[in-house]
């Protein structure tokens, strides 16, 4: 019951008025980020990092703020799925299937309310899973040596594209590019200048925060400019809440199943929230079979994917917190925050920075309660904000990104660099090179090199040490599978997901 004690300490951290205020702020902003057009969760969290920095927030507060934003974004994604049939973020895709038909039948308010409840249930299950699994995994991870870590990093990259990923080779290329960028600067172990070209600003390496903000925020702006999607969406009428208590109770089994499946999908490398919500939805459909009216606005068709994707969101924090290896874009950005707070992520964090880890976990629980409370009465506010046209929103978001980056170092050099990353990110995204592996490469590159160095020094330069223990062989195998499986099963799964969406009555 040691865990419970830690959790209580975590609550003590998270429940201070100061931290609670930031959790509330984060939950609100997160929901906004999730529902506003052109602001994905990873993007939103990335923009907030420099701000959290310049505010000089203490580490636990900064992490609580960003985790609440993360949780909030998962809630927000569903709003535009239900009302407009446009998923706010990728995992919210499956919510469109029954959410939108419900809205068309005039039950938009009910769909929003039940999805908020399902999100809450999913998150709660996911967070409980996190509390139980994370310490165990962290203890196990203490047995990892440098060679195992090296293999683990490879595994993280290999599975990042996910089982539904399109072209694994592009993931490899993206990761390599990211790691390459991270090698710029003075080599930590030997002091050799690498790829600096004598430019003073490059001696300390390229700040990954400006790279992340550039790659996400600036390239997003350029995408909107190109697609000319400046016009807003029409206002939607939500209608009255008619959800009965009995109806809520009837969805409880669905919520439990969805949350649990989502959590598992979130923990596993290469699955992630999108797959979590997809699996939950499909399972629910097959469990209930003919009894349900899926695709026509069945309430359980809204509950399942929402519980699934929120469960997955909490699950995704498990590898990030225990191993320092994030499995998704947003958790990668959270990792960036940890690294820049000078906290070494990984198993040691549970002993050395227990207050932060448990504070974050407690904040996740509190954040979810706040989100549920926020989301039911304030849904009208969010809906109104949904119709803010991107042509005003995105320039302002870009400006906030500029301010954030500028206020870190007060140098315009960083701003030019950020623009370069933005343009580069735009070009790479056009060519379907994913952004997340680049960012993960930037973050994990130095650690990977350090572990490689340690492993080789311990073995006196014998390279076979990298795959000599059973554990590291296992990790290499999974990494290999992570690259091979998507080419075999990716097309099938993708087709299924597409078909599932096509089956839904899509109008407009």
């Amino acid at each position, binding site marked *: 019951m040691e865990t419970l004690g830690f959790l209580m300490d975590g609550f003590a951290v998270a429940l201070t008025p100061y931290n609670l205020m930031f959790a509330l702020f984060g939950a609100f902003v997160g929901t906004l980020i999730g529902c506003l057009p052109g602001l994905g969760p990873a993007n939103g969290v990335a923009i907030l990092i420099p701000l959290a920095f*310049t*505010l000089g927030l203490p580490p636990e507060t900064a992490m609580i703020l960003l985790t609440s934003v993360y949780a909030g974004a998962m809630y927000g994604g569903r709003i535009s799925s239900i009302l407009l049939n446009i998923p706010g973020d990728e995992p919210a895709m499956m919510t469109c299937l029954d959410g939108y038909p419900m809205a068309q039948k005039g039950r938009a308010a009910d769909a929003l309310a039940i999805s908020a409840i399902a999100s809450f249930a999913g998150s709660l299950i996911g967070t409980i899973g996190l509390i139980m699994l994370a310490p165990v995994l962290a203890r196990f991870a203490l047995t990892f040596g440098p060679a195992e870590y090296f293999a683990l990093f490879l595994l993280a990259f290999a599975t990042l594209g996910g089982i539904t990923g*399109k*072209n694994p*080779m*592009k993931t*490899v*290329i993206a990761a*390599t*590019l990211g*790691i*390459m960028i991270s*090698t710029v600067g003075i*080599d930590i*172990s*030997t*002091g*050799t200048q*690498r*790829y600096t070209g004598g430019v003073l600003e490059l001696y300390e390496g390229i700040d990954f925060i400006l790279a992340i903000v550039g790659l996400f925020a*600036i390239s997003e*702006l*350029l995408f*909107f*400019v*190109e697609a*000319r999607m*400046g*016009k807003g969406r029409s206002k939607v009428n939500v209608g009255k809440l008619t959800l009965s208590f009995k109806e809520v109770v009837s969805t409880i089994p669905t919520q439990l199943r969805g949350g649990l499946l989502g959590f598992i999908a979130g923990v596993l490398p290469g699955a992630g929230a999108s797959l979590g919500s997809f699996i939950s939805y499909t399972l629910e459909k097959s469990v209930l079979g003919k009894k349900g009216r899926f695709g026509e606005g069945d309430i359980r068709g809204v509950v399942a994917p929402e519980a699934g994707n929120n469960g997955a969101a909490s699950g995704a924090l498990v590898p990030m917190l225990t191993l320092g290896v994030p499995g998704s874009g947003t958790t990668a950005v959270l990792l960036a925050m940890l690294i820049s707070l000078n906290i070494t992520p990984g198993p040691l964090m549970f002993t050395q920075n227990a207050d932060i880890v448990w504070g974050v976990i407690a904040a996740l629980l509190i954040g979810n309660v706040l989100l549920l409370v926020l989301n039911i009465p304030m849904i009208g506010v969010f809906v109104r904000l949904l119709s803010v*046209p991107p*042509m*005003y929103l*995105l*320039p*302002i978001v*870009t*400006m*906030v990104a*500029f*301010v954030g980056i*500028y*206020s870190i170092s007060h140098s*315009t050099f960083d*701003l*030019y660099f950020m*623009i370069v990353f*933005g*343009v580069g990110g735009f070009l790479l995204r*056009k*060519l*379907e*090179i994913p952004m997340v592996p680049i960012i993960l490469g930037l973050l994990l590159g130095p650690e*990977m*090199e350090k572990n*490689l*160095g340690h492993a*080789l*020094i311990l073995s*006196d*330069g014998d390279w076979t040490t990298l795959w000599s223990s059973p554990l590291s062989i296992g990790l290499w195998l999974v990494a290999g599978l992570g690259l091979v499986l998507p080419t075999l099963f990716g097309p099938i799964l993708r087709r299924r997901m597409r078909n599932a969406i096509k089956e839904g009555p899509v109008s407009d």
Partner: protein
Amino acid sequence: MTGLGDRILGLFLLVLAVAYGWVAQQWPEPFGGSEGVGPETFPTMLAVVLVVGSLYLMIKPDADARWPVGKSALELVISIIVLVVYALLLEPLGFIISTTLAVGALSWRMGAPAAKSFVTGLVSAVVVFGLFNYGLSLSLPNGLLGGF
């Protein structure tokens, strides 16, 4: 030819990988001799991986993306120029003036009416400036509005 985009990217990455790998071989051996892993070991591995990746791209490219042409491309270039000019003028003109111009220009180019765009720019600039300078006491450049 289909997959031209990927092929060009592949070629670019190949050049990059070779240059990156070559530069790594030029570094002087660190003081104290080599110990299995020098500063060049890891970059060399990366260069090899990227060479393989870029060759794969050139041999098996994906179908082409739709690239912006004509007006869309022009708008993109304009937006990038606005961003660069914004960074350039941020310190000399000060935050409020440069932000009004930048946010205004971007909104306007994205399709908002000109007057409304620049008002949005001004309002957001003043709000953010006030929030940062007075609320959070982080100084943004004053520029021309020195005494403001």
